[in-house]
């Protein structure tokens, strides 16, 4: 009984720790500042840049993640252990270092070629997308792989014996079975992308109306000691993320495979 109480207390302490942090934001909440912020073009720009960059970065990550995760879940291949390690790269390396690596890459001949002929990422919207994409790609693939790992191979095997080719099996069995888990992974990837700060500010800076995202706007407001303004942006970012996380929870609530 004591152990049970202890572990439940630990779980509740998490709620208390984060609850206090969120509650402290409300201590500085001011409706006048809210009204002022809501009429500020800069805030709308930051919301739009954050949402659109996170959406594009998530889309790009998902396009690579789904087939990559399927390969990692189902097949053995020579570079699999190396790929597996690199999925953790964004987690073991600081976001600022990841951003710096992106900048360093664009100083190499290949990076220069891309900058001159395709796109320039430094202090640009594309830089935000790239920074977020690089940050979430590993996590997205890891989550997608967990989804495929959870689907028993026996369904794919039986589909093959019923006449389905590899691709028919993937599209008619694996993907439909993974649908819910994948949707949840997409939402979490998007939430991670929209909250990305370190790599984004390193690559794209925080230029108002151009490359300022919600997290970088929080940093700028705080650096100007505007606590009330900071709180408003935090609450907006928090609301967007909570909505997406609740959505993910709802999607995950029912499992479609046993």
């Amino acid at each position, binding site marked *: 009984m004591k152990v049970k109480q202890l572990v439940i207390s630990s779980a509740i302490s998490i709620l208390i720790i984060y609850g206090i942090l969120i509650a402290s934001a409300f201590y500085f909440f001011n409706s006048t500042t809210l009204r002022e912020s809501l009429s500020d073009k800069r805030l709308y720009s930051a919301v739009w840049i954050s949402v659109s960059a996170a959406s594009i970065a998530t889309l790009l990550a998902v396009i690579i993640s789904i087939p990559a995760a399927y390969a990692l879940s189902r097949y053995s291949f020579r570079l699999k252990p190396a790929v597996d390690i690199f999925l953790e790269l964004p987690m073991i390396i600081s976001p600022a270092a990841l951003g710096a690596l992106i900048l360093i890459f664009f100083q190499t001949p290949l990076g220069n070629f891309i900058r001159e002929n395709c796109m320039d990422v430094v202090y640009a919207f594309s830089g935000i997308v790239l920074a977020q994409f690089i940050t979430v790609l590993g996590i997205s693939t890891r989550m997608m792989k967990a989804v495929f790992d959870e689907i*028993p191979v*026996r*369904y794919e*095997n*039986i*589909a*093959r*014996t*019923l*006449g*389905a*080719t*590899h691709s*028919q099996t993937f599209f*008619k*069995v694996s993907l*439909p*079975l993974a*649908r819910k888990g994948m949707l949840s992974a997409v939402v979490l990837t998007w939430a991670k992308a929209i909250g990305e700060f370190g790599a984004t500010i390193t690559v794209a800076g925080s230029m108002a109306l151009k490359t300022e995202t919600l997290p970088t706007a929080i940093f700028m407001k705080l650096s100007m000691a505007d606590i009330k303004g900071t709180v408003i942006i935090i609450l907006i970012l928090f609301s967007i993320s909570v909505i997406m996380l609740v959505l993910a929870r709802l999607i995950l609530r029912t499992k*479609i*495979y*046993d």
Partner: protein
Amino acid sequence: MIELKNITIEAGKFLLDEVSLTVENGKFHVLLGPTGSGKTILLETIAGLVKPSSGSITINAVDAASLPPEQRGLSYLPQDYALFPHKNVYENIAFGLTLKKNFSPGEINNKISELSWLLNISHLLNRNVHHLSGGEQQRVALARALVLDNSMLILDEPTSSLNETMQEEFCLLLKDLQKRFNLTVLMTTHHKDSAFMLADRLHFIESGKLFLSIDTSKLNHTPLPLKVAELIGITNVLKLKRSPENASVYHSTELNADFQFSEYLHENSEEFELGIKPVDIRVIKEEEKHLNHINRFHAIVEQIIFKESNALVFLKNPVSGFMLKMELSSYNLRKMNIVNGDILLCKIKEEYVRKVY
């Protein structure tokens, strides 16, 4: 016809060792073996889901080694049925047909209606597969396999999760379907009763080795490897040696008794081993003791274990201490008033015993 030649599969510590097997067209073949003997992996190899380390597989005279599962023309019923959880019963059955371009929705509908009527699952077609009982799931999975009109059906332990009554019903259904569609069937099981009920030909497998393939009709008079004998319930094995005084008499030191058996059993060998099922040992009744019974021996009742309507009696030879198992009906046990410590005069029924090696 499916022909396996020297199929070897290494899966971790498990080794399926040079298995050769022929499944003749139109016959019901049963692969009988205990759990973990390699039955499932062998079926998966035939279905194309597992690649053997060596050996060859031909299906209808075509080398199947490089054929993917979808081109093997086999219907496969896995042990856990693997019904697609994202599809209802109708969609599950229709899955294979919808992949083929030559079936219109109307034709698919007709085929499913016909088969579901035959398998008594018409009322389940719109159900979610999660809401089916084990037996219903099995019939749906069977319909999904049969609807493709393949002439070959392979089934992995289809009776393992069924109770005795359901096992019997399912076996009758399978036998009927096999005749109706002229199917070539290979089924795995560890239930000897299901195996004997269905098989035209039996294949015995244990620890990755195929010990014997034999027509069921020939099983009664064929010497059996010891492992095969155990699989079909022969738990008593006696060593018999020809008597120096009488060439037609064999002596058992273990039972301290003499026996006379037909020539097909001993084949005039100097010594041989005799396999006896517990049900083939009988107690000689008091009123029959004066008759000239052959193949008698004395034994002490060591322990009695009651099963459903039968009792398993552990017998011990008073001289050698050799143990035997005898099975008789609980009714007879009570009628003869047999209790622990009794000394019984028993008889072996010659017609069912067989030579083992």
